[in-house]
């Protein structure tokens, strides 16, 4: 085993390690809690959906939630029991927001479902192994909790040459990976074997900070014939940051905003590798993890193997929590961890440490003084930023300068704030500034989108207008042209054939007469209507006069007509018009009938009745017109037939029918409104009368 060259970390700090607090005894197993709170989202990516319902009995290891989305990890029941609730529950997140979770009331039996182990993994294909890892719901156990299977499936053009197994554990206090390596080195190496089988990397580097000599010895001892490099790197925070570790081990820097895969490098946490071992070789899904329980508010700090979903308070009480002493409860370490909003929040796949700190241990920082630009922050920044400048620009909301000073390359490790002599909460400023910039970018994108849509609409309307304008012009031109042509034709006709001209004149005359006749008819109808309403003598005489005028007009018309119409009968045009009228009446009738079918009201019934008659009449008119046009006998009769007035008998019948329907409607209405008996009787009588009238007419 040759020594691997190491590139020292840029910057970094040495906060008190406080690791001896929790790594002095072997891993204990936590007691089975009465209730498990299993959140549906425990990883980076999309949330899962519950695949069980309240009341279901679940076995340990049974799938209880999954997602169709690729960037997700299924969730399994950590113990057997009954699903008692699915909904919002406390959740370990800096925001303090609740998260949907499946609550399982454990039955104490801790009964496993059947597991499919794959002990001879070296015979399996990469696809099989990847599927196994996905089915086991493994997401990164060290940091952000990215679904492992996604990381293990690099793009075909970016093969992984170097697999880095991260056992640095550079955060103070946390010893979960330390004890895991000490106690589970053989499983760790088998897990790495599986990863190697999937990725086929050239180099496998297992990095461990040199403050963990027992872990280094254990892993080296379990290596056997494997050609993996176990590298002890100098203890400095944040050497365990993915990008930092890559530079320490390879001297390469991961390009800004890119993934390590671009360099052919993949990092996995030691805990994740052990979880891969458990998933493949034992078939066990990820339902438990090793968590450090530490801090001076605990009487017996230790590492426990605990079920996912165990409420924090149960673990803290198991290790002797002195509630009065605890001034803050942190998930993770003192550099990058976040305070837990509630002690009821559960352990999830990424919870590597619960730090119950006393006020003496992690005192509240003194009030911040102004920055004196001492530059200590820039000296310790592992990303080689200028934190003091970022602070100034953040104070002034100078987003362009913040971005020019590479704010988004900040990994929020907290080294700058740790060393700041003025106790300025620098990381808070950066988080807020990043959120601000992201929000503004979103707003900008939205506004841009809206603007684009608006401009598109304006353009569309403009084109529409243009098209309409062009059509209007074309129409106007056509009209002018046809007018001119008509005028020309008329002039030609007059010049060429006086006889024809006289015929044209006669036609014009006929047209005029027709109009006069119909106008007289209209005036008469109007007057008649008025007469119906106000029956005065003046009106009566007026109507009489009008009727005469109409007769006169008709006679005039008839006199003018014979010459032309005598042999023609009803013109084709006329028939067409009648046909259209008939079919329209038919359509209206059908519509009304349909409506009637759905809403059986009496008003509708009346309407339908009327329409039916109108339609029948239209048809009749059409038939007679057609007959007339085919026989071409007496023009006067045809004309009359074509006009097809109702006979008085028919009209009376129709009226009676309507009367009956209306009476019926009135009666029904009264019945509906629960009118008194007298009214009902009267209406009934009226209806009977109307029916009798109708029968008499028929």
């Amino acid at each position, binding site marked *: 085993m040759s020594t691997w060259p190491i590139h020292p970390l840029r910057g970094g700090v040495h906060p008190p390690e406080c690791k001896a607090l929790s790594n002095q005894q072997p891993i204990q197993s936590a007691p089975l809690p009465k209730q498990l709170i299993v959140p549906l989202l425990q990883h980076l990516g999309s949330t899962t959906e519950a695949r069980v319902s309240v009341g279901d009995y679940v076995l340990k290891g049974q799938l209880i939630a999954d997602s169709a989305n690729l960037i997700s990890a299924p969730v399994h029941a950590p113990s057997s029991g009954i699903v008692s609730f699915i909904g919002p529950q406390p959740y370990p997140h800096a925001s303090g927001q609740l998260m949907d979770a499946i609550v399982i009331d454990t039955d104490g039996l801790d009964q496993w479902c059947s597991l499919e182990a794959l002990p001879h993994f070296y015979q399996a294909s990469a696809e099989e192994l990847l599927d196994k890892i996905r089915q086991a719901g493994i997401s990164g156990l060290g940091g952000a909790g990215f679904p492992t299977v996604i990381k293990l499936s690099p793009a075909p053009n970016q093969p992984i040459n170097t697999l880095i197994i991260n056992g640095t554990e550079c955060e103070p206090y946390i010893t979960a990976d330390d004890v895991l390596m000490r106690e589970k080195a053989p499983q760790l190496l088998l897990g790495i074997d599986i990863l190697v089988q999937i990725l086929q990397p050239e180099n496998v580097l297992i990095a461990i900070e040199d403050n963990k000599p027992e872990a280094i010895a254990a892993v080296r001892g379990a290596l056997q014939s494997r050609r993996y490099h176990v590298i002890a790197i100098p203890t400095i925070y944040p050497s365990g940051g993915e990008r930092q570790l890559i530079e320490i081990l390879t001297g390469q820097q991961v390009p800004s905003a890119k993934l390590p895969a671009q360099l052919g490098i993949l990092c996995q946490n030691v805990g994740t590798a052990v979880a891969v071992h458990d998933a493949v070789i034992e078939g066990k899904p990820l339902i438990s993890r090793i968590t450090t329980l530490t801090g001076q508010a605990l009487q017996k700090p230790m590492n426990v193997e605990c079920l996912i979903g165990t409420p924090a308070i149960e673990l803290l009480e198991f290790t002797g929590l002195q509630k009065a002493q605890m001034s803050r409860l942190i998930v993770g370490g003192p550099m990058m*961890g976040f305070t837990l909003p509630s002690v009821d929040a559960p352990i999830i796949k990424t919870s590597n440490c619960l730090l119950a700190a006393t006020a003496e241990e992690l005192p509240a920082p003194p009030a911040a003084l102004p920055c*004196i630009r001492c*530059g200590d922050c820039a000296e310790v920044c592992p990303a080689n930023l200028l934190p003091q400048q970022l602070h100034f620009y953040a104070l002034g909301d100078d987003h362009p300068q913040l971005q020019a000073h590479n704010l988004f390359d900040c990994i929020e490790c907290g080294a700058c704030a740790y060393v700041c002599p003025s106790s300025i909460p620098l*990381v808070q400023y950066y988080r807020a500034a990043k959120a601000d910039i992201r929000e503004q970018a979103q707003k900008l994108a939205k506004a841009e989108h809206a603007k684009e849509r608006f401009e598109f609409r304006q353009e569309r309307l403009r084109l529409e207008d243009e098209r309409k304008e062009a059509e209007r012009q074309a129409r106007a031109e056509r009209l002018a042209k046809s007018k001119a042509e008509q005028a020309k034709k008329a002039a030609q006709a007059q010049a060429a054939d006086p006889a024809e001209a006289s015929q044209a004149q006669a036609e014009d005359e006929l047209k005029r007469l027709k109009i006069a006749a119909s106008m007289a008819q209209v005036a008469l109808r109007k007057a008649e209507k008025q007469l119906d309403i106000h029956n005065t003598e003046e009106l009566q005489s007026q109507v009489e006069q009008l009727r005469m005028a109409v007769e006169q007009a008709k006679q005039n018309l008839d006199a003018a007509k014979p010459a032309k119409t005598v042999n023609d009968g009803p013109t084709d045009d006329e028939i067409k018009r009648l046909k259209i009228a008939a079919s329209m009446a038919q359509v209206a009738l059908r519509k009304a009938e349909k409506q009637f079918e759905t809403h059986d009201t009496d008003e509708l019934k009346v309407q339908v009745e009327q329409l039916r008659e109108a339609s029948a009449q239209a048809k009749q008119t059409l038939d007679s017109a057609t007959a007339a046009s085919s026989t071409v006998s007496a023009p006067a009769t045809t004309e009359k037939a074509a006009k097809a007035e109702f006979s008085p008998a028919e009209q009376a019948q129709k009226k009676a029918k309507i009367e009956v329907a209306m009476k019926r409607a009135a009666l029904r209405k009264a019945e509906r409104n629960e009118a008194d008996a007298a009214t009902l009787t009267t209406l009934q009588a009226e209806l009977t009368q109307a029916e009798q009238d109708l029968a008499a007419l028929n």
Partner: protein
Amino acid sequence: MTLPRITSPHAKGANRTQRVMLLVIAATVPGILTLSYFFGIGPLLNIVLACAFALLFEAAILALRKRPVGFFLKDGSVLVTGLLLALALPPYSPWWLIAVATGFAVVFGKQLFGGLGQNPFNPAMLGYVVVLVSFPVDMTAWPAAHSVDAIAGLQHVFFGQAFPDAWSQATVLDALKINSSLTIEELWNSSSAFGVFAGYSSEWVNLAFLLGGLFLLHKKLFSWHAPLGMLAALFIMSLLFWNGNGSDSQGSPLFHLLSGATMLGAFFIVTDPVSSATSVQGRLIFGIGVGVLIYIIRAWGGYPDGVAFAVLLMNLCAPTIDYFTRPRTYGHKAAKRGFKAGE
């Protein structure tokens, strides 16, 4: 059970701004002792008066600005300003001279720009320059070593009683500047003001400040870039333009390193983080600029020493230096530099 919600990091290093200021004050002790050895209670009177005035002015203007007086007086920065000003002024400076200098330094140099951390110029140097150009006679009246007794000194400081002529002496920088006839050897023999390499008192005082500066460097209060840049630039300039020991000599490199306010400037003024450039590379450039300017002013300017002017001139350049000396961030191919913020 409600738990406090605090964002990371939760751990906090032990370093505090007050500690930084106290260390600076502690590091001046060798210099103060050496000065007192040569000039009696003069430097101490300067310090007491300057610090008292500085606190007074700071408190008054903080009250006017409606800022918490106690909180900001405790940060110790105004004491450092007063102290450094006191060390730069000639021993036994009249009380009113000290009042004007500290007043200008604290009120105009610092608080009117927004107080701690906001001043573009080094306040002590600003106050120093104001009295230097306003009261040149008093400012060049350095007493000869071991000449002034305490009673006369007190009378001079508080009641304006003049010293006997024999007690005052031109500084060696001054002597070299006005010399046009004597060779260096003759000059050295002509006055008791000269010592081995530079002034009889100034070389020891400079060495004492160097000692204090090395202590601060050891304590990692600042990086080596600015002080070394300044001293190296001054050394190289004086070496390049060293024209021998004739009557037109500009002085040897060692003469320049151990004269005037060189070491005080290098370790206590140029290292002021507020008014200096902020990146490591920027600080190197800042220091070099100060060193070059000091030599130019000493050799060809109108004043015998140029530390204060050089520092103020470079203070003007610091923001620009910052724009052009940003480091290359992790994962970036090249550093983004220049005034423009856009991509």
